[in-house]
């Protein structure tokens, strides 16, 4: 049951987004994030929505999946929207209930904030998590950060740690299940009692899990040594990443998008924002 959870929510596919070089995806995501925070008026926000919609269509990911991905941020979005609505001051109030004054500026600010956060989450998860396997992402990060090696940043070591962590998540989940069953068979009770009791019940799961994880780490280290692992020096990679023309088209599109967002901000509008 626990074994079936998807890691990092990757959905294999063959869309133009899937085919993009993972390094280019990281670069493009970074540009996208910057563009989002440059958007300041209704036109640039409209472009933002348009671009997010285009990305969604191109990715071939189901809309229900994307909406599901937005669930965890619903609370924070609603909460900040409400704060914006009630606390933003403008010139003429729309509704006036004595203490509570709602200005049109507050509503605009809230709406733009929602667009901003939603397109941020949709854009980056489409580019990075839904269409890129965790291993490709790790690999891309390692390659992008390669120049940092000159500054003695242990780039390879971090990437290796990430890979091993990803590799062992399903193994450790399976192990947790086994330990839980073993403890249940001995009469352990994880489902009843107050919070404190339930937390206490976790101890007999965590201790064996940690001990076994350390033992695994030990064995894995020996096995890696046996396969001639000696750090990142002199290491080659089987997979060669090459930017294609197509990747540069994406970069070009992204740059045009950001510049447009930036320019659209200068179109005068009657709506005034408080940021």
């Amino acid at each position, binding site marked *: 049951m626990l*074994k079936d959870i998807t890691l990092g929510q990757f959905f294999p596919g063959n869309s133009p987004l899937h085919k993009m070089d993972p390094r280019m995806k990281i670069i493009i995501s970074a540009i996208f994030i910057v563009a989002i925070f440059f958007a300041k008026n209704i036109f640039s926000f409209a472009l933002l929505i348009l671009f997010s919609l285009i990305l969604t269509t191109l990715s071939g990911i189901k809309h229900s999946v994307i909406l599901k991905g937005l669930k965890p941020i619903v609370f924070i979005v609603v909460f900040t929207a409400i704060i914006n609505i009630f606390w933003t001051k403008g010139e003429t109030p729309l509704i006036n209930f004595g203490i509570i004054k709602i200005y049109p500026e507050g509503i605009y600010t809230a709406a733009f904030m929602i667009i901003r956060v939603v397109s941020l989450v949709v854009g980056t998860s489409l580019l990075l998590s839904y269409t890129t396997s*965790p*291993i490709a992402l790790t690999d891309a990060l390692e390659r992008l950060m390669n120049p940092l090696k000159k500054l003695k940043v242990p780039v390879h070591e971090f990437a290796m740690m990430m*890979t*091993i962590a*990803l*590799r062992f998540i*399903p*193994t450790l989940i*399976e192990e947790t299940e086994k330990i839980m069953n073993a403890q249940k068979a001995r009469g352990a009770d994880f489902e009843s009692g107050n919070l404190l009791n339930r937390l206490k019940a976790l101890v007999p799961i965590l201790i064996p899990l940690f001990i076994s994880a350390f033992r*695994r780490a030990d*064995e*894995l280290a*020996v*096995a*890696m*040594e*046996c*396969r*001639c*692992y*000696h750090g990142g020096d*002199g*290491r*080659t*990679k*089987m*997979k*060669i990443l090459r930017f294609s023309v197509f990747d540069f088209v994406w970069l070009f599109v992204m740059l045009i998008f950001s510049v447009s967002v930036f320019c659209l901000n200068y179109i005068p509008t009657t709506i005034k924002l408080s940021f």
Partner: protein
Amino acid sequence: MSNIVFENVSYTYTEQPNLSNIPFAVKNINLTIEKGSSVVILGHNGSGKSTLAKLINGILLPTSGKVTVNGMDTSNQENILEIRRTVGMVFQNPDNQIVATVVEEDVAFGPENLGVPPHEIRSRVEYALNAVGMSEFRLHAPHQLSGGQKQRIAIAGVIAMKPQYIILDESTAMLDPYGRREILDTAHSLNKNENITTVLITHYMEEAVYADRVIVMNDGSVVMDGSPAYVFSNVDKLKAIGLDVPQPTELLYLLSKDGHKLPAGIMTVKDAADALEKYLLKGE
């Protein structure tokens, strides 16, 4: 000089070597493993057989004595990468030796560490996966595979380094009978078809039957060394150190103890049946 040589090797896990009564994991081992042979090392838990394996590729260094692989001394740090490339090692738990999240990436791990050029890694990975019959699983995640399949991936990872020797250190201990069969067949075919020396470390007697040579260890020493037929004809001696013999051997042994004149050292059901038939026909 293509062989593995143990010269008077002793090893202790204790860190106070000036104790008067040091518990040695292995002591005074003299052994030569020739290239191309298939060797089985038998022994029950704590007999020193795994220590012996780790001494071969320099994971452990001898407390005294010398281990050489193709003439390279394991205690010389400069040799260690070449030794580990030459002597591949597969361990007991398949989960704890797979590094990557995709099968082909894991097989590529060894050659990547050795700095092999990318296109050659690709062809080595294909070759290795083929040799263990796992080509169709190249893009699977390791946790989707069975124990026997994972262990075959681990073997492929070793083969991709183009070793001359492969040591399987209790690699079948955690597998079901079917998985065990898979691994033994793979090891057998590597020895016969790829001319890789295989060293199987095990406590399953049946695995020793098809080897060229069986080494029996007890208490850190080699107590028997010879062909399977020779080793299994000494049933008394094996039983004395707590080891079993294959069932057909046991049957013939019990019968001959009762006064029937049957040959010793028979290991397979077919041979045992033939011997019994011959004996019964003669007796009539």
